[in-house]
């Protein structure tokens, strides 16, 4: 999701820290302060005796505080299990609480210390942190028991939340709470040998929120209730980049329940006593738009311009021209050579289309500004809010709720819908809570799509049919362009090429000439579950099958040989596992055709074999066998859930996903025109986890990008034809 944050802020230099800090506090340089210090200044978050991640109650129950939002990925279960393992807690008495916004306490170590969830990093950036927190608290309880019982600490055992000694003495965490809280936490507590784990990696690590999410009791932003709550809806411009020219609120103001109409930077907001009145009020608004600076091209024109750049029909501009992202050997040779496979791929804009459209509750004008919503990137949301209300970012309070999906949409460098809500709440003032509600149409037409992407690939092969030269051109909008100081992507936006860059196939090719160009387009774009891999995995994996077919080789054997050349051991392991579990060496069930694909993203390697057939000319996907190497598996059940869900999300886009624009106006608005995968179209996913003792790696995103090429490769075998544009099924 926000891999870019991950990549770019991972190791901020001192200068960048100062630049960010200076930007935030109005120009005064805070020498000697870390980003965490700067961004948490003004925060009132308090930390208990057991640190920012753990709380214990007198009844012995344990609360693990999650710095990451839960919007489906199951990370709350995994995070709690990491701490519970080191604590030797009773898993049935462990619950999870969402952390407040505070970059110093809850920064993501993969995002340069800003607080945020994304890049499939929740588990792996917390691994050592939560193990340490659990082990430290455990040591404090052991020491307290040793003092109370006058026995050596080394003789005390902890299991299932109970401390015991051979003498027969025993106590729970609650019994020793006061004594343990007074003990200084060890700075470097001894962590368990993973071989002795009793919880991690077992089927006992299950979700903690299934009950509240099966009874309607879970609270999402849309569900926030306050006695004096107002609901706002905003009339947005039909074209990106347009501004309000004038508006007439007379009719809207007459709707019963409408209390105010305000112009804000993104449009005109109708504020009402309830959702329906806000909606009726907005319907009655008359707004004229200034489209002088609007993007007025259609998506077909935008794609055509990308294709012309890739083919050379249009010369690249001097500024912002082609930039190499991978090169090896003599580039001129990559353009030459006969009998090349030359192919071009097109990918459309994609909406995230979370089940819960974007929304937010803000209170401005009385005490500290307070936000209540599903915040995926609290620090960014604090920074962007602080700029509007003129306060320290750290003073902006955020209560993070469950969110009804994100897939990247809720982590936005501009905090688009959040700042929209803050602007409205500021106009309302007095600290009165304002809930901004976007309809499905608002959400789908608001932009921040996975960008249109075009790839042109030209590959020549050696006598054995393996790639000898590989010329690759990628044309896409930059997701990271316009990021704050110290966070911009530079010449190469990594989110545009990740997955092509680093591909074992390129490593195995003697001559590589791979370049990227990022034209400006006025349609806002954003990371979308698995980000660059949404297209690079497809291009690399479908190209490889076409090359294997030309070479007359089996796609699994062909890949394996290239992985051997590239030294891609983990790829080989998941490929072998998936081939074995899918029965690759034996024929597919009657009527089905198999396709294989493998891709590494967010530190994990996923291989899939999909069984596909054509029904009424449309692809149907049945069994999908998945193998994943994600390092240490914390919750096998939730890893499987993410493979199931990620596969559906990827398949939905591959088969049906497409946002188009006509003359700058988005054509789709709801699920009747933006088709998504439905229940009967979902494949049956089997997940096999490669045993590993490495630290855990990503799970939320790596399951998404592999199904597309696996299906395309099955169709290639079935029909003999490649599939060079998505979606497969045109509206």
């Amino acid at each position, binding site marked *: 999701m926000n891999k870019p944050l991950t990549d770019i802020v991972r190791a901020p230099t001192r200068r960048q820290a100062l630049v960010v800090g200076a930007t935030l506090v109005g120009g005064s340089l805070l020498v000697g302060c870390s980003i965490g210090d700067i961004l948490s200044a003004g925060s009132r978050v308090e930390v208990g005796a057991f640190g920012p991640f753990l709380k214990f109650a007198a009844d012995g129950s344990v609360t693990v505080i999650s710095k990451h939002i839960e919007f489906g990925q199951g990370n709350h279960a995994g995070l709690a299990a990491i701490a519970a393992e080191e604590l030797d807690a009773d898993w049935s008495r462990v619950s999870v609480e969402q952390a407040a916004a505070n970059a110093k306490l809850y920064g993501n170590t993969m995002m340069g210390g800003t607080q945020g969830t994304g890049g499939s990093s929740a588990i792996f950036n917390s691994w050592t942190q939560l193990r340490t927190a659990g082990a430290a608290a455990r040591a404090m309880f052991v020491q307290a028991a040793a003092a109370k019982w006058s026995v050596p600490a080394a003789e005390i055992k902890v299991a299932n939340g109970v401390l015991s000694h051979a003498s027969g003495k025993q106590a729970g965490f609650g019994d020793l709470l006061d004594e343990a809280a007074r003990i200084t936490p060890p700075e470097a507590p001894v962590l368990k040998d993973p071989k002795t784990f009793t919880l991690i990696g077992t089927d006992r690590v299950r979700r903690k929120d299934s009950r509240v999410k*099966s009874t309607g009791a879970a609270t999402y932003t*849309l569900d926030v209730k306050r006695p004096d709550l107002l609901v706002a809806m905003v009339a947005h411009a039909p074209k990106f980049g347009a501004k309000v020219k004038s508006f007439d609120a007379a009719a809207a103001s007459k709707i019963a329940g409408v209390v105010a109409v305000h112009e804000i930077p993104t449009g005109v907001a109708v504020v009402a006593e309830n959702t329906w009145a806000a909606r009726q009020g907005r319907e009655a608004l008359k707004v004229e738009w200034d489209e002088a600076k609007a993007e007025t091209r259609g998506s077909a024109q935008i794609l055509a311009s990308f294709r012309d750049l890739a083919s050379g029909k249009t010369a690249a501009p001097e500024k912002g021209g082609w930039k190499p992202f991978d090169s090896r050997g003599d580039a001129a040779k990559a353009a030459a050579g006969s009998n090349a496979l030359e192919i071009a791929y097109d990918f459309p804009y994609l909406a995230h289309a979370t*089940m*819960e459209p974007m929304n937010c509750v803000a209170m401005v004008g009385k005490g500290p500004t307070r936000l209540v919503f599903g915040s995926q990137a609290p620090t960014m949301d604090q920074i962007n809010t602080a700029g509007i209300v003129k306060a320290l970012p750290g003073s902006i309070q955020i209560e993070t709720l469950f969110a009804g999906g994100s897939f990247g949409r809720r982590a936005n460098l501009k905090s688009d819908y959040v700042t929209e809500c803050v602007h409205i709440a500021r106009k309302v003032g007095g600290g009165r809570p304002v809930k901004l509600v976007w309809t499905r149409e608002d959400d789908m037409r608001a932009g921040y799509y996975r960008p249109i992407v075009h790839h042109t690939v030209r590959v020549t092969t050696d006598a054995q049919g393996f790639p000898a030269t590989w010329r690759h051109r990628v044309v896409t909008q930059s997701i990271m362009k316009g990021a704050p100081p110290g966070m911009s992507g530079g010449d190469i936006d990594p989110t545009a090429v990740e997955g092509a860059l680093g591909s074992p196939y390129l490593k195995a090719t003697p001559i590589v000439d791979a370049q990227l160009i990022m034209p400006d387009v006025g349609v806002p774009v954003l990371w979308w579950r698995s980000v660059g891999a949404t297209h690079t995995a497809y291009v690399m994996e479908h190209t490889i099958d076409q090359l294997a077919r030309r070479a007359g080789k089996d796609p699994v054997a062909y890949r394996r040989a290239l992985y051997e050349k590239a030294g891609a051991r983990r790829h080989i392991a998941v490929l072998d596992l998936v081939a074995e579990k899918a029965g690759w060496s034996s024929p597919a069930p009657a009527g089905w055709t198999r396709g294989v694909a493998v891709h590494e993203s967010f530190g994990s390697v996923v291989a899939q074999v999909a069984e596909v057939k054509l029904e009424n000319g449309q692809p149907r996907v049945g069994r999908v066998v998945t193998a994943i190497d994600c390092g240490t598996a914390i919750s096998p059940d939730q890893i499987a*859930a993410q493979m*199931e869900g990620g596969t559906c999300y990827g398949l939905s886009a591959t088969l049906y996903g497409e946002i188009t624009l006509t003359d700058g106006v988005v054509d789709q608005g709801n699920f009747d025109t933006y088709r*998504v995968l439905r229940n009967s179209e979902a494949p049956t996913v089997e997940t096999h986890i490669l045993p590993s003792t490495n630290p855990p790696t990503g799970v939320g995103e790596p399951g998404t990008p592999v199904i597309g090429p696996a299906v395309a490769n099955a169709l290639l075998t079935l029909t003999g034809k490649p599939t060079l544009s998505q979606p497969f099924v045109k509206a």
Partner: protein
Amino acid sequence: MATTVDVNGRPLNVNSAPDTPLLWVLRDELGLTGTKYGCGVAQCGACTVLVDGQAMRSCQMPVSAVGAAKITTIEGLGGTHPLQEAWVKLDVPQCGYCQSGQIMSAVALLAQTPKPDDAAISAAMDGNICRCGAYQRIRAAIKEAAAGPAVQPVAAKA
């Protein structure tokens, strides 16, 4: 305009404008927020409730059209309905936002077809979108619940 609707076995007075969809009456006026807004045009199923035992999209039903019909929402299932237990047992929810609607559609299905085959599950559940893609577990949980004692029609209980 004050009117009375029967929700989860209780007659409740509501004052929302007559054209207000039942969804927003349930959520904004009655505080029953388990029923979700997802699309507003009966495409996604997140707002599914039972109307006299039938699964209906509350976003498309004006409150004035409810009349004497008995409405059952996710809150009216009581929290330990066999489908809810199956949902918990199999950890069906991911983000969870669509699950109230999924469960209500499944309740209506099992009330009519206690042992549904795959085709019946598809017919009943294809109107409920899950963007997290929990479909495989939704199907499994319906089968899990269907394998247990017969599921009573909920509206009859009220």
